[in-house]
Protein backbone atom coordinates (compact mmCIF):
# COMPACT_ATOMS: atom_id res chain seq x y z
CA UNK A 1 0.00 0.00 0.00
CA UNK A 2 1.35 3.46 -0.86
CA UNK A 3 1.38 5.80 2.08
CA UNK A 4 3.57 8.55 0.73
CA UNK A 5 2.65 11.24 3.19
CA UNK A 6 5.04 11.97 5.99
CA UNK A 7 3.12 12.08 9.24
CA UNK A 8 3.11 14.88 11.79
CA UNK A 9 4.60 12.93 14.69
CA UNK A 10 6.87 9.98 15.32
CA UNK A 11 4.77 6.89 14.87
CA UNK A 12 6.73 5.19 17.60
CA UNK A 13 5.35 7.64 20.14
CA UNK A 14 1.74 6.72 19.36
CA UNK A 15 -0.60 3.99 20.37
CA UNK A 16 -1.59 1.30 17.84
CA UNK A 17 -5.01 2.86 17.17
CA UNK A 18 -3.50 6.30 16.51
CA UNK A 19 -0.87 4.77 14.20
CA UNK A 20 -3.55 2.90 12.28
CA UNK A 21 -5.69 6.04 12.01
CA UNK A 22 -2.83 8.12 10.58
CA UNK A 23 -1.75 5.45 8.12
CA UNK A 24 -5.32 4.95 6.92
CA UNK A 25 -5.95 8.71 6.56
CA UNK A 26 -2.73 9.82 4.86
CA UNK A 27 -2.46 11.41 1.41
CA UNK A 28 0.24 11.08 -1.30
CA UNK A 29 2.87 13.85 -1.74
CA UNK A 30 3.48 14.18 -5.49
CA UNK A 31 3.07 17.97 -6.01
CA UNK A 32 6.05 20.14 -7.10
CA UNK A 33 6.54 23.85 -7.90
CA UNK A 34 4.93 23.65 -11.35
CA UNK A 35 1.97 21.76 -9.87
CA UNK A 36 1.58 24.36 -7.12
CA UNK A 37 1.85 27.22 -9.62
CA UNK A 38 -0.72 25.54 -11.87
CA UNK A 39 -3.03 24.86 -8.94
CA UNK A 40 -2.74 28.50 -7.80
CA UNK A 41 -3.25 30.06 -11.22
CA UNK A 42 -5.74 27.47 -12.42
CA UNK A 43 -8.00 27.66 -9.41
CA UNK A 44 -8.16 31.46 -9.55
CA UNK A 45 -8.22 32.06 -13.28
CA UNK A 46 -12.00 31.77 -13.41
CA UNK A 47 -11.95 35.18 -11.71
CA UNK A 48 -10.72 36.61 -15.00
CA UNK A 49 -13.59 34.98 -16.89
CA UNK A 50 -16.56 36.15 -14.79
CA UNK A 51 -17.62 37.72 -11.49
CA UNK A 52 -15.36 40.78 -11.56
CA UNK A 53 -17.53 42.30 -14.30
CA UNK A 54 -20.33 42.84 -11.77
CA UNK A 55 -18.08 45.50 -10.19
CA UNK A 56 -18.57 47.64 -13.30
CA UNK A 57 -22.27 48.14 -12.50
CA UNK A 58 -22.67 51.90 -11.75
CA UNK A 59 -18.96 52.21 -10.91
CA UNK A 60 -17.08 52.40 -14.20
CA UNK A 61 -13.68 51.08 -15.35
CA UNK A 62 -11.39 53.43 -13.39
CA UNK A 63 -13.05 52.58 -10.07
CA UNK A 64 -12.69 48.90 -10.94
CA UNK A 65 -8.99 49.38 -11.74
CA UNK A 66 -8.30 51.06 -8.38
CA UNK A 67 -10.32 48.41 -6.53
CA UNK A 68 -8.53 45.66 -8.46
CA UNK A 69 -5.08 46.95 -7.53
CA UNK A 70 -6.11 47.14 -3.86
CA UNK A 71 -7.26 43.52 -4.12
CA UNK A 72 -4.02 42.50 -5.89
CA UNK A 73 -2.01 44.02 -3.04
CA UNK A 74 -4.17 42.23 -0.47
CA UNK A 75 -3.59 38.88 -2.15
CA UNK A 76 0.12 39.39 -2.76
CA UNK A 77 0.68 40.05 0.94
CA UNK A 78 -1.76 37.32 1.93
CA UNK A 79 -0.07 34.53 -0.05
CA UNK A 80 3.25 35.39 1.59
CA UNK A 81 1.75 35.22 5.10
CA UNK A 82 -0.09 32.05 4.13
CA UNK A 83 3.10 30.44 2.84
CA UNK A 84 4.64 30.86 6.27
CA UNK A 85 1.68 29.19 7.96
CA UNK A 86 1.23 26.38 5.46
CA UNK A 87 4.94 25.45 5.44
CA UNK A 88 4.94 25.36 9.24
CA UNK A 89 1.75 23.25 9.30
CA UNK A 90 1.48 21.31 6.02
CA UNK A 91 -1.91 19.74 6.66
CA UNK A 92 -4.87 19.32 4.33
CA UNK A 93 -6.89 21.10 7.02
CA UNK A 94 -5.02 24.39 6.50
CA UNK A 95 -6.95 26.97 8.51
CA UNK A 96 -8.36 24.28 10.79
CA UNK A 97 -4.79 23.39 11.81
CA UNK A 98 -3.77 27.05 12.24
CA UNK A 99 -6.67 27.94 14.53
CA UNK A 100 -6.47 24.65 16.41
CA UNK A 101 -2.80 25.08 17.16
CA UNK A 102 -2.78 28.81 17.87
CA UNK A 103 -5.83 28.96 20.14
CA UNK A 104 -8.20 25.99 20.49
CA UNK A 105 -10.50 23.66 18.52
CA UNK A 106 -13.28 26.26 18.44
CA UNK A 107 -11.18 28.74 16.48
CA UNK A 108 -9.92 25.90 14.32
CA UNK A 109 -13.49 25.01 13.46
CA UNK A 110 -14.49 28.63 12.71
CA UNK A 111 -11.54 29.02 10.36
CA UNK A 112 -12.03 25.64 8.73
CA UNK A 113 -15.75 26.26 8.31
CA UNK A 114 -15.01 29.69 6.79
CA UNK A 115 -12.74 28.17 4.18
CA UNK A 116 -15.20 25.38 3.50
CA UNK A 117 -17.94 27.98 2.82
CA UNK A 118 -15.55 30.06 0.72
CA UNK A 119 -14.59 27.12 -1.48
CA UNK A 120 -18.07 25.62 -1.63
CA UNK A 121 -19.73 28.84 -2.80
CA UNK A 122 -16.91 29.53 -5.22
CA UNK A 123 -17.44 26.05 -6.65
CA UNK A 124 -21.16 26.73 -7.04
CA UNK A 125 -20.56 30.09 -8.75
CA UNK A 126 -17.98 28.58 -11.09
CA UNK A 127 -20.18 25.61 -12.00
CA UNK A 128 -22.97 28.05 -12.87
CA UNK A 129 -20.66 30.28 -14.89
CA UNK A 130 -19.28 27.26 -16.75
CA UNK A 131 -22.83 26.36 -17.64
CA UNK A 132 -23.41 30.00 -18.64
CA UNK A 133 -20.48 29.94 -21.08
CA UNK A 134 -21.69 26.65 -22.58
CA UNK A 135 -25.24 28.03 -22.93
CA UNK A 136 -23.78 31.12 -24.62
CA UNK A 137 -21.81 28.94 -27.03
CA UNK A 138 -24.92 26.99 -28.00
CA UNK A 139 -27.10 30.07 -28.50
CA UNK A 140 -25.23 33.41 -28.24
CA UNK A 141 -28.41 35.44 -28.75
CA UNK A 142 -30.52 33.73 -26.09
CA UNK A 143 -28.52 31.52 -23.68
CA UNK A 144 -30.91 28.97 -22.17
CA UNK A 145 -31.08 28.62 -18.34
CA UNK A 146 -31.84 24.89 -18.74
CA UNK A 147 -28.72 24.36 -20.86
CA UNK A 148 -26.75 26.30 -18.25
CA UNK A 149 -28.00 24.04 -15.44
CA UNK A 150 -27.47 20.75 -17.28
CA UNK A 151 -24.00 21.80 -18.42
CA UNK A 152 -23.11 22.78 -14.87
CA UNK A 153 -24.33 19.42 -13.54
CA UNK A 154 -22.29 17.55 -16.15
CA UNK A 155 -19.21 19.53 -15.11
CA UNK A 156 -19.77 18.58 -11.47
CA UNK A 157 -20.07 14.86 -12.26
CA UNK A 158 -17.07 14.71 -14.61
CA UNK A 159 -14.66 16.50 -12.30
CA UNK A 160 -15.75 14.71 -9.14
CA UNK A 161 -14.97 11.47 -10.96
CA UNK A 162 -11.58 12.76 -12.15
CA UNK A 163 -10.54 13.82 -8.65
CA UNK A 164 -11.70 10.53 -7.16
CA UNK A 165 -9.39 8.87 -9.69
CA UNK A 166 -6.27 10.44 -8.15
CA UNK A 167 -4.46 13.62 -7.18
CA UNK A 168 -1.44 13.21 -9.46
CA UNK A 169 -3.68 12.62 -12.42
CA UNK A 170 -5.81 15.65 -11.55
CA UNK A 171 -2.65 17.71 -11.05
CA UNK A 172 -1.50 16.90 -14.60
CA UNK A 173 -4.97 17.79 -15.87
CA UNK A 174 -4.74 21.04 -13.89
CA UNK A 175 -1.43 22.02 -15.52
CA UNK A 176 -2.83 21.37 -19.00
CA UNK A 177 -6.08 23.22 -18.31
CA UNK A 178 -4.22 26.16 -16.76
CA UNK A 179 -2.16 26.58 -19.94
CA UNK A 180 -5.41 26.36 -21.90
CA UNK A 181 -7.02 28.99 -19.67
CA UNK A 182 -4.10 31.39 -20.12
CA UNK A 183 -4.20 30.77 -23.87
CA UNK A 184 -7.91 31.64 -23.76
CA UNK A 185 -7.12 34.98 -22.14
CA UNK A 186 -4.38 35.72 -24.69
CA UNK A 187 -6.86 34.98 -27.49
CA UNK A 188 -9.35 37.29 -25.78
CA UNK A 189 -6.83 40.14 -25.48
CA UNK A 190 -5.90 39.80 -29.16
CA UNK A 191 -9.52 39.79 -30.31
CA UNK A 192 -10.56 42.64 -28.00
CA UNK A 193 -7.55 44.72 -29.08
CA UNK A 194 -9.11 45.02 -32.54
CA UNK A 195 -11.79 47.32 -31.06
CA UNK A 196 -9.74 48.92 -28.29
CA UNK A 197 -9.97 52.60 -27.37
CA UNK A 198 -8.23 54.37 -24.47
CA UNK A 199 -11.20 56.71 -24.18
CA UNK A 200 -13.40 53.86 -23.00
CA UNK A 201 -10.94 52.95 -20.24
CA UNK A 202 -9.86 56.43 -19.10
CA UNK A 203 -13.37 57.82 -18.92
CA UNK A 204 -14.55 61.35 -18.37
CA UNK A 205 -15.33 61.86 -15.53
CA UNK A 206 -12.92 59.27 -14.14
CA UNK A 207 -15.33 58.27 -11.37
CA UNK A 208 -19.14 58.50 -11.54
CA UNK A 209 -20.12 62.04 -10.55
CA UNK A 210 -22.90 60.87 -8.24
CA UNK A 211 -20.68 58.38 -6.35
CA UNK A 212 -17.14 59.73 -6.49
CA UNK A 213 -14.70 57.57 -4.50
CA UNK A 214 -17.59 55.47 -3.16
CA UNK A 215 -17.52 53.76 -6.55
CA UNK A 216 -14.15 52.25 -5.63
CA UNK A 217 -15.49 50.97 -2.31
CA UNK A 218 -18.57 49.48 -4.00
CA UNK A 219 -16.41 47.70 -6.58
CA UNK A 220 -14.13 45.95 -4.07
CA UNK A 221 -16.38 43.00 -3.02
CA UNK A 222 -16.72 41.91 -6.65
CA UNK A 223 -13.06 42.60 -7.47
CA UNK A 224 -12.07 40.18 -4.70
CA UNK A 225 -13.34 37.51 -7.07
CA UNK A 226 -10.36 38.22 -9.37
CA UNK A 227 -8.07 36.38 -6.94
CA UNK A 228 -10.09 34.66 -4.24
CA UNK A 229 -9.41 30.95 -3.55
CA UNK A 230 -5.67 31.05 -4.22
CA UNK A 231 -5.34 29.92 -0.62
CA UNK A 232 -6.54 26.52 -1.79
CA UNK A 233 -2.87 25.94 -2.50
CA UNK A 234 -2.25 25.89 1.26
CA UNK A 235 -4.43 22.80 1.47
CA UNK A 236 -2.10 21.09 -0.98
CA UNK A 237 0.81 21.43 1.44
CA UNK A 238 0.11 17.96 2.85
CA UNK A 239 0.45 16.63 -0.70
CA UNK A 240 3.46 18.79 -1.68
CA UNK A 241 6.99 17.49 -2.08
CA UNK A 242 9.31 19.62 0.12
CA UNK A 243 6.59 22.14 1.03
CA UNK A 244 9.09 24.72 2.35
CA UNK A 245 10.38 25.11 -1.23
CA UNK A 246 7.37 24.36 -3.38
CA UNK A 247 4.66 26.29 -1.52
CA UNK A 248 6.31 29.77 -1.33
CA UNK A 249 7.72 29.59 -4.86
CA UNK A 250 4.57 28.23 -6.43
CA UNK A 251 2.35 30.73 -4.60
CA UNK A 252 4.46 33.83 -5.33
CA UNK A 253 4.93 33.04 -9.02
CA UNK A 254 1.27 32.12 -9.30
CA UNK A 255 0.20 35.37 -7.69
CA UNK A 256 2.43 37.49 -9.93
CA UNK A 257 1.12 35.68 -13.01
CA UNK A 258 -2.43 36.41 -11.90
CA UNK A 259 -1.81 40.12 -11.30
CA UNK A 260 -0.63 40.48 -14.91
CA UNK A 261 -3.71 38.57 -16.11
CA UNK A 262 -6.02 40.78 -14.02
CA UNK A 263 -4.68 44.07 -15.39
CA UNK A 264 -4.64 42.97 -19.03
CA UNK A 265 -8.10 41.39 -18.88
CA UNK A 266 -9.57 44.52 -17.27
CA UNK A 267 -7.83 46.73 -19.84
CA UNK A 268 -8.97 44.90 -22.95
CA UNK A 269 -12.48 44.05 -21.72
CA UNK A 270 -13.26 47.65 -20.76
CA UNK A 271 -11.41 49.15 -23.73
CA UNK A 272 -13.30 47.10 -26.30
CA UNK A 273 -16.88 47.79 -25.21
CA UNK A 274 -18.64 51.07 -26.00
CA UNK A 275 -20.26 51.01 -22.58
CA UNK A 276 -18.72 48.98 -19.78
CA UNK A 277 -22.13 48.73 -18.07
CA UNK A 278 -23.09 46.23 -20.77
CA UNK A 279 -20.51 43.88 -19.33
CA UNK A 280 -22.32 43.75 -15.98
CA UNK A 281 -26.01 43.41 -16.88
CA UNK A 282 -27.94 42.41 -19.98
CA UNK A 283 -30.84 44.23 -21.58
CA UNK A 284 -33.29 42.56 -19.17
CA UNK A 285 -31.24 43.67 -16.15
CA UNK A 286 -29.87 40.18 -15.36
CA UNK A 287 -26.28 39.77 -14.22
CA UNK A 288 -23.96 38.52 -16.95
CA UNK A 289 -21.89 35.41 -16.15
CA UNK A 290 -20.02 35.26 -19.49
CA UNK A 291 -18.54 38.79 -19.86
CA UNK A 292 -15.55 37.95 -22.05
CA UNK A 293 -17.71 36.07 -24.52
CA UNK A 294 -20.09 39.04 -24.40
CA UNK A 295 -17.23 41.37 -25.40
CA UNK A 296 -16.27 39.17 -28.35
CA UNK A 297 -19.90 38.89 -29.42
CA UNK A 298 -20.36 42.69 -29.26
CA UNK A 299 -17.38 43.88 -31.32
CA UNK A 300 -17.02 43.76 -35.14
CA UNK A 301 -14.62 40.80 -35.14
CA UNK A 302 -17.26 38.84 -33.24
CA UNK A 303 -19.41 38.68 -36.37
CA UNK A 304 -17.13 35.85 -37.38
CA UNK A 305 -18.51 32.60 -35.89
CA UNK A 306 -14.93 31.34 -35.67
CA UNK A 307 -14.03 34.13 -33.21
CA UNK A 308 -17.10 33.63 -31.00
CA UNK A 309 -17.07 29.83 -30.93
CA UNK A 310 -13.27 29.53 -30.96
CA UNK A 311 -12.90 31.84 -27.98
CA UNK A 312 -15.88 30.35 -26.18
CA UNK A 313 -14.44 26.86 -26.51
CA UNK A 314 -11.02 27.88 -25.21
CA UNK A 315 -12.65 29.91 -22.41
CA UNK A 316 -14.14 26.70 -21.10
CA UNK A 317 -10.61 25.66 -20.14
CA UNK A 318 -10.50 28.59 -17.73
CA UNK A 319 -13.79 27.72 -16.18
CA UNK A 320 -13.12 24.04 -15.74
CA UNK A 321 -9.54 24.59 -14.57
CA UNK A 322 -10.87 26.75 -11.75
CA UNK A 323 -13.76 24.45 -11.04
CA UNK A 324 -11.30 21.61 -10.76
CA UNK A 325 -9.15 23.51 -8.25
CA UNK A 326 -12.13 24.72 -6.26
CA UNK A 327 -13.49 21.22 -5.97
CA UNK A 328 -10.05 20.22 -4.73
CA UNK A 329 -10.18 22.94 -2.05
CA UNK A 330 -13.75 22.23 -0.96
CA UNK A 331 -13.23 18.49 -0.73
CA UNK A 332 -9.91 18.76 1.13
CA UNK A 333 -11.45 21.12 3.67
CA UNK A 334 -14.45 18.82 4.16
CA UNK A 335 -12.03 15.88 4.39
CA UNK A 336 -9.94 17.59 7.08
CA UNK A 337 -12.99 18.67 9.09
CA UNK A 338 -14.42 15.15 8.83
CA UNK A 339 -11.08 13.51 9.70
CA UNK A 340 -10.82 15.71 12.77
CA UNK A 341 -14.39 14.94 13.89
CA UNK A 342 -15.59 18.54 13.36
CA UNK A 343 -17.97 17.36 10.62
CA UNK A 344 -19.43 13.85 10.14
CA UNK A 345 -16.62 11.25 10.23
CA UNK A 346 -17.44 9.67 6.86
CA UNK A 347 -16.14 12.85 5.19
CA UNK A 348 -12.66 12.05 6.53
CA UNK A 349 -12.29 8.66 4.89
CA UNK A 350 -10.04 7.98 1.89
CA UNK A 351 -10.15 5.37 -0.85
CA UNK A 352 -8.06 2.40 0.38
CA UNK A 353 -5.98 2.16 -2.81
CA UNK A 354 -6.06 5.57 -4.51
CA UNK A 355 -5.83 7.58 -1.23
CA UNK A 356 -8.35 10.18 -2.40
CA UNK A 357 -11.16 11.56 -0.18
CA UNK A 358 -14.06 9.98 -2.04
CA UNK A 359 -16.82 10.76 0.46
CA UNK A 360 -15.80 14.42 0.79
CA UNK A 361 -15.64 14.82 -3.00
CA UNK A 362 -19.01 13.18 -3.50
CA UNK A 363 -20.63 15.30 -0.76
CA UNK A 364 -19.25 18.55 -2.18
CA UNK A 365 -20.44 17.51 -5.61
CA UNK A 366 -23.96 16.85 -4.33
CA UNK A 367 -24.15 20.21 -2.50
CA UNK A 368 -22.93 22.01 -5.63
CA UNK A 369 -25.49 20.18 -7.78
CA UNK A 370 -28.35 21.17 -5.44
CA UNK A 371 -27.43 24.86 -5.61
CA UNK A 372 -26.93 24.68 -9.37
CA UNK A 373 -30.49 23.40 -9.80
CA UNK A 374 -31.76 26.10 -7.39
CA UNK A 375 -30.37 28.68 -9.81
CA UNK A 376 -33.43 28.08 -11.96
CA UNK A 377 -35.47 29.97 -9.35
CA UNK A 378 -32.88 32.51 -8.10
CA UNK A 379 -31.65 34.80 -10.86
CA UNK A 380 -28.88 36.49 -8.85
CA UNK A 381 -27.44 33.19 -7.57
CA UNK A 382 -24.03 33.84 -9.14
CA UNK A 383 -23.65 37.25 -7.46
CA UNK A 384 -24.72 35.87 -4.08
CA UNK A 385 -22.36 32.88 -4.35
CA UNK A 386 -19.48 35.19 -5.34
CA UNK A 387 -20.12 37.56 -2.43
CA UNK A 388 -20.53 34.83 0.22
CA UNK A 389 -17.35 33.19 -0.98
CA UNK A 390 -15.33 36.40 -0.77
CA UNK A 391 -16.79 37.50 2.58
CA UNK A 392 -16.08 34.17 4.31
CA UNK A 393 -12.59 34.26 2.81
CA UNK A 394 -11.90 37.65 4.38
CA UNK A 395 -13.05 36.39 7.78
CA UNK A 396 -10.47 33.64 7.90
CA UNK A 397 -7.69 35.78 6.40
CA UNK A 398 -7.95 38.06 9.44
CA UNK A 399 -8.13 35.10 11.85
CA UNK A 400 -5.19 33.36 10.14
CA UNK A 401 -2.98 36.40 10.53
CA UNK A 402 -3.99 36.51 14.21
CA UNK A 403 -2.83 32.86 14.46
CA UNK A 404 0.44 33.80 12.75
CA UNK A 405 1.12 36.48 15.36
CA UNK A 406 0.27 34.12 18.23
CA UNK A 407 2.39 31.25 16.93
CA UNK A 408 5.36 33.47 16.08
CA UNK A 409 5.39 34.60 19.70
CA UNK A 410 4.72 31.22 21.28
CA UNK A 411 6.53 28.79 18.95
CA UNK A 412 9.14 30.74 16.96
CA UNK A 413 11.08 27.57 16.01
CA UNK A 414 8.03 26.35 14.15
CA UNK A 415 8.79 28.82 11.34
CA UNK A 416 12.42 27.71 10.87
CA UNK A 417 11.79 26.26 7.43
CA UNK A 418 10.33 29.42 5.88
CA UNK A 419 9.83 33.00 7.05
CA UNK A 420 7.90 35.50 4.92
CA UNK A 421 9.60 38.85 4.21
CA UNK A 422 8.46 42.13 5.81
CA UNK A 423 7.91 40.36 9.10
CA UNK A 424 5.71 43.01 10.74
CA UNK A 425 4.40 45.11 7.84
CA UNK A 426 3.15 42.20 5.75
CA UNK A 427 0.66 40.58 8.17
CA UNK A 428 -0.46 44.04 9.30
CA UNK A 429 -1.23 44.90 5.67
CA UNK A 430 -3.29 41.72 5.25
CA UNK A 431 -5.37 42.58 8.32
CA UNK A 432 -5.79 46.19 7.25
CA UNK A 433 -6.81 45.42 3.67
CA UNK A 434 -9.09 42.56 4.72
CA UNK A 435 -10.75 44.76 7.35
CA UNK A 436 -11.16 47.48 4.74
CA UNK A 437 -12.76 44.99 2.33
CA UNK A 438 -15.11 43.60 5.02
CA UNK A 439 -16.16 47.16 5.87
CA UNK A 440 -17.24 47.94 2.30
CA UNK A 441 -19.71 45.03 2.27
CA UNK A 442 -22.06 47.23 4.29
CA UNK A 443 -22.48 49.58 1.33
CA UNK A 444 -23.27 47.23 -1.56
CA UNK A 445 -26.72 46.52 -2.93
CA UNK A 446 -26.74 42.71 -2.68
CA UNK A 447 -27.17 41.94 1.02
CA UNK A 448 -25.24 38.79 1.84
CA UNK A 449 -24.21 39.51 5.44
CA UNK A 450 -27.40 38.02 7.01
CA UNK A 451 -27.17 34.86 4.87
CA UNK A 452 -23.49 34.47 5.71
CA UNK A 453 -24.25 34.92 9.42
CA UNK A 454 -26.91 32.19 9.14
CA UNK A 455 -24.40 29.78 7.60
CA UNK A 456 -21.97 30.44 10.44
CA UNK A 457 -24.79 29.86 12.95
CA UNK A 458 -25.58 26.47 11.36
CA UNK A 459 -21.93 25.38 11.46
CA UNK A 460 -21.33 26.58 15.01
CA UNK A 461 -24.51 24.90 16.24
CA UNK A 462 -23.34 21.58 14.82
CA UNK A 463 -19.93 22.05 16.38
CA UNK A 464 -21.15 23.00 19.86
CA UNK A 465 -24.05 20.59 20.20
CA UNK A 466 -22.62 17.51 18.45
CA UNK A 467 -19.00 17.59 17.27
CA UNK A 468 -17.29 19.30 20.22
CA UNK A 469 -17.06 16.20 22.47
CA UNK A 470 -16.30 13.89 19.54
CA UNK A 471 -13.14 15.46 18.09
CA UNK A 472 -10.79 12.79 16.72
CA UNK A 473 -7.62 12.95 18.82
CA UNK A 474 -5.54 11.03 16.27
CA UNK A 475 -6.11 13.49 13.38
CA UNK A 476 -2.82 15.13 12.25
CA UNK A 477 -4.02 18.63 13.17
CA UNK A 478 -4.91 17.43 16.69
CA UNK A 479 -1.69 15.46 17.18
CA UNK A 480 0.34 18.45 16.04
CA UNK A 481 -1.43 20.76 18.50
CA UNK A 482 -1.20 18.24 21.35
CA UNK A 483 2.48 17.67 20.75
CA UNK A 484 3.17 21.43 20.69
CA UNK A 485 1.30 21.82 23.97
CA UNK A 486 3.09 18.94 25.70
CA UNK A 487 6.46 20.30 24.49
CA UNK A 488 5.73 23.78 25.84
CA UNK A 489 4.46 22.36 29.16
CA UNK A 490 7.52 20.16 29.48
CA UNK A 491 10.00 22.94 28.78
CA UNK A 492 11.44 24.93 31.70
Amino acid sequence: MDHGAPLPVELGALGPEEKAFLVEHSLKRPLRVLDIWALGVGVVITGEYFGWNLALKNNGPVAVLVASLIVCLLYLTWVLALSELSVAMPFAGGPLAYGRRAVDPSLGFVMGWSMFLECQFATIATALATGGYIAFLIDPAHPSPMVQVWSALATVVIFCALQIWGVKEQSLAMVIMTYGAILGLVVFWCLAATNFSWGRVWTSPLLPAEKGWRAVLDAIPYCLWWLVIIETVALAAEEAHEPHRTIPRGLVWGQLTLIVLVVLTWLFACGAMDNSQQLAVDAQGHDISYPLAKVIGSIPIGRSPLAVYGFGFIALFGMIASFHGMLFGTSRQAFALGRGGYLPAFLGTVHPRRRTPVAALASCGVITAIFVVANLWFSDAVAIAVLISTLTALVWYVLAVGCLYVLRQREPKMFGNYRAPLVRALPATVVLLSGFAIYVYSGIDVKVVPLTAFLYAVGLSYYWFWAHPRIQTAAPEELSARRARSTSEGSP
Partner: protein
Amino acid sequence: MTKTIDTAHSATDASDKPRRPAPLLEWLAATVLLLVAVALAWMIVVAYRPDWLRLASLKVEVLAILGLLTAALLLVSAVALRNTRD
Protein backbone atom coordinates in the same frame (compact mmCIF):
# COMPACT_ATOMS: atom_id res chain seq x y z
CA MET B 1 8.83 1.24 10.41
CA THR B 2 9.11 4.71 11.88
CA LYS B 3 7.96 7.52 9.64
CA THR B 4 8.70 11.01 10.93
CA ILE B 5 7.99 14.58 10.08
CA ASP B 6 8.41 17.26 12.65
CA THR B 7 6.22 20.02 11.35
CA ALA B 8 6.97 22.24 14.30
CA HIS B 9 10.71 21.93 14.71
CA SER B 10 12.15 20.21 11.69
CA ALA B 11 15.74 21.06 10.88
CA THR B 12 16.45 22.92 7.65
CA ASP B 13 19.32 22.39 5.27
CA ALA B 14 21.31 25.62 5.08
CA SER B 15 21.03 25.60 1.28
CA ASP B 16 17.23 25.65 1.58
CA LYS B 17 17.13 28.90 3.55
CA PRO B 18 15.67 31.81 1.56
CA ARG B 19 17.93 34.74 0.85
CA ARG B 20 17.22 37.74 3.10
CA PRO B 21 15.92 40.70 1.12
CA ALA B 22 17.97 43.89 1.00
CA PRO B 23 17.18 46.04 4.08
CA LEU B 24 16.65 49.15 1.95
CA LEU B 25 14.17 47.34 -0.28
CA GLU B 26 12.31 46.02 2.74
CA TRP B 27 12.27 49.46 4.35
CA LEU B 28 10.94 51.04 1.14
CA ALA B 29 8.27 48.38 0.76
CA ALA B 30 7.14 48.79 4.38
CA THR B 31 7.01 52.58 3.99
CA VAL B 32 4.90 52.35 0.85
CA LEU B 33 2.55 49.88 2.55
CA LEU B 34 2.13 52.41 5.35
CA LEU B 35 1.29 55.08 2.77
CA VAL B 36 -1.28 52.71 1.23
CA ALA B 37 -2.91 52.40 4.65
CA VAL B 38 -3.12 56.19 4.91
CA ALA B 39 -4.52 56.35 1.36
CA LEU B 40 -7.27 53.85 2.19
CA ALA B 41 -8.29 55.85 5.25
CA TRP B 42 -8.38 58.98 3.07
CA MET B 43 -10.49 57.14 0.50
CA ILE B 44 -13.11 56.24 3.10
CA VAL B 45 -13.21 59.85 4.32
CA VAL B 46 -13.69 61.37 0.87
CA ALA B 47 -16.20 58.67 -0.11
CA TYR B 48 -18.58 59.91 2.56
CA ARG B 49 -17.35 63.53 2.95
CA PRO B 50 -16.63 64.57 -0.65
CA ASP B 51 -15.70 68.13 0.38
CA TRP B 52 -12.94 67.16 2.79
CA LEU B 53 -9.21 66.68 2.19
CA ARG B 54 -9.35 66.90 -1.61
CA LEU B 55 -6.30 67.33 -3.85
CA ALA B 56 -6.02 69.62 -6.89
CA SER B 57 -8.33 67.53 -9.06
CA LEU B 58 -9.91 64.10 -9.33
CA LYS B 59 -7.38 63.20 -12.02
CA VAL B 60 -4.46 63.99 -9.69
CA GLU B 61 -6.08 61.94 -6.92
CA VAL B 62 -6.65 58.92 -9.16
CA LEU B 63 -3.13 59.07 -10.58
CA ALA B 64 -1.63 59.40 -7.09
CA ILE B 65 -3.57 56.39 -5.79
CA LEU B 66 -2.76 54.29 -8.86
CA GLY B 67 0.92 55.23 -8.57
CA LEU B 68 1.01 54.35 -4.90
CA LEU B 69 -0.67 50.98 -5.40
CA THR B 70 1.59 50.14 -8.35
CA ALA B 71 4.69 51.04 -6.33
CA ALA B 72 3.48 48.86 -3.46
CA LEU B 73 2.86 45.91 -5.79
CA LEU B 74 6.28 46.24 -7.44
CA LEU B 75 8.18 46.59 -4.18
CA VAL B 76 6.41 43.72 -2.40
CA SER B 77 6.89 41.56 -5.52
CA ALA B 78 10.62 42.33 -5.57
CA VAL B 79 10.96 41.50 -1.88
CA ALA B 80 8.92 38.30 -2.29
CA LEU B 81 10.92 37.08 -5.30
CA ARG B 82 14.25 37.61 -3.51
CA ASN B 83 12.83 35.77 -0.52
CA THR B 84 11.94 32.65 -2.50
CA ARG B 85 15.35 32.30 -4.23
CA ASP B 86 17.91 29.77 -2.99
